């Protein structure tokens, strides 16, 4: 039984990763999870300089999901390299760094600073709905996405994953633009923009008014988009959105994802990632499936 997958030449023990922003840099969950068991760790978005993020409240619950408007608070790339990457170095696990910025230059800055580190891949967040400048603006227009992808690819030393926003009319256009510009992989979906109103206080629940919807509620949308993209591009896909169990992970893989990420569900079950890895192995055993790779995109 073989759970390994590879994306752009990088080998992963198994296809289960943590979704950016939901697992810190691993430190916070290492009491719960054996870090080396993970397919990969995808870190919280990091910018060239520290970002304070949005005012609170930043999170709230919705039916089978949650909204967040963290606003990409991060300590900046210097602290990140010094502290977070240094911490992760002690583990034998591929590290994927999620990169954010307000301008193309911001992104390039971070990408360059990471070029002589041992991170395995870069995930470019052009899909965060919670910041006013940059981010999602690059992820909702195919021309802008093509352009930023191309510029990042020109300087990046590591393979580049473009993380797509579901807040678009046609996700395949975005996937194709990323592929055409040379992206090594795409990851999807980031959160869907949502809103909650407190009818008693007659106020938005989140200080930012809107937030990003994630969790099981959005899973059907995510599976659909992964399927559409898998049929539109030939670069590998990392699928995410509401994964809570091995069954959910398999849905994404069968829809065409080479790997999957677990996001909000880490908060609900901090053991989720390891349980999913175990569940995946059990599924393979139970069904006499040799490799997880056979399952990628098997539902047409």
């Amino acid at each position, binding site marked *: 039984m073989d759970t390994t997958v590879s994306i752009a030449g990088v080998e992963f023990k198994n296809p289960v990763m943590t979704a950016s922003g*939901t697992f810190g840099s691993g430190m*916070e969950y290492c009491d719960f999870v054996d870090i080396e068991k993970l397919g990969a760790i995808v870190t919280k978005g990091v910018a060239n300089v520290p970002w304070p*993020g949005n005012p*609170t409240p930043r*999170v709230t619950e919705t039916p*089978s999901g949650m909204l967040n408007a*963290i606003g990409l*608070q991060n300590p900046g790339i210097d602290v990140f390299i010094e502290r977070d990457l240094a911490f992760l170095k002690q583990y034998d696990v591929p590290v994927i760094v999620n990169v954010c910025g307000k301008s193309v230059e911001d992104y390039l800055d971070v990408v360059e600073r990471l070029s002589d580190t041992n991170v395995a891949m870069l995930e470019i967040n052009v899909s965060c709905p919670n910041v006013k400048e940059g981010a999602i603006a690059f992820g909702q227009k195919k021309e802008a996405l093509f352009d930023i992808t191309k510029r990042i690819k020109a300087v990046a030393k590591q393979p580049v994953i473009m993380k797509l926003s579901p807040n678009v009319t046609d996700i395949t256009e975005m996937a194709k633009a990323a592929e055409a510009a040379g992206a090594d992989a795409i990851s999807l979906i980031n959160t869907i923009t949502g809103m909650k109103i407190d009818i008693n206080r007659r106020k938005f629940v989140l200080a930012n008014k809107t937030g990003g919807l994630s969790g099981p509620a959005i899973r059907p949308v995510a599976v659909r988009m992964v399927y559409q993209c898998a049929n539109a591009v030939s670069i590998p896909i990392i699928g995410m959105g509401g994964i809570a169990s091995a069954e959910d992970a398999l849905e994404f893989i069968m829809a065409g994802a080479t790997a999957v990420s677990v996001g909000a569900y880490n908060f609900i079950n*901090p053991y989720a990632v390891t349980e999913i890895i175990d569940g995946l192995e059990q599924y393979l055993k139970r069904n006499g499936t040799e490799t997880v790779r056979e399952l990628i995109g098997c539902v047409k």
Partner: protein
Amino acid sequence: MEYRKKETTYVVSQEELSKGIYDLRLQTPAAAYAKPGQFVGLYPPSDAHLLMRPISICESDSVKSELRMVYRIAGEGTRLLSTLKKGDAVSMLSLLGNGFPVSAAAGKKVAVMGGGIGIPPMLYTAKQLKNVAAETEIYLGYRDGDTFLSDEFEGYGTVNRVTEDGSVGYAGNVLDAVSERGFIPEIIFACGPMPMLRAIKNYAEKINATAYISLEERMACGVGACLGCVAKTVKKDAHSHVNNTRICTEGPVFDAKEVEI
């Protein structure tokens, strides 16, 4: 010494202590490790309400392995928790947060202040201060004569009940009562609504005392990963490198001087 897990605990008992306020006792080995001011994350018995609800530890009995929480129904999550009955399983994430630095009160004149649903964590705090502080005055602020939990503070210091409507004890807020009694604490431990905590922060600065206050914010992860629960800090926070600190991890208890509230 660190107790950090998500586990299934069982309800030892749950009763309505006062209108809409519930007293829940859970069987868990975490009781042996709990510090006053720490909190737990209780997952509502529901598969659509997914996030844990942060609830402070009100008492901990390490012999019986029982944690006690007292909470108010604030919305659907706490309403669901209130339906739990003896023997029911409940998922709990614990132990969360730093807790009150009880030892900092050694040999000092201490004021323990609680307001409304901020009173429960002060019970465990007052208990632990008993053999540490030189003198403990306890101020418990309520809206009206429903002074739930206040009797249980007897024996841990001078208990002063304060009610907004003046129906029981001192009239006004906890600081009104402090000034009426002419008590000047060297150190303050407090939990309660934001206006009360703000007033305490100012008061402590004025009298040059140290105030440890317990803050609240909506939480998702409870363990410092999501950055959902931050409070503004005066200086750059060591973790975030911006003026934001995580209430669930660096808090919920802060030296009032260090946070902007």
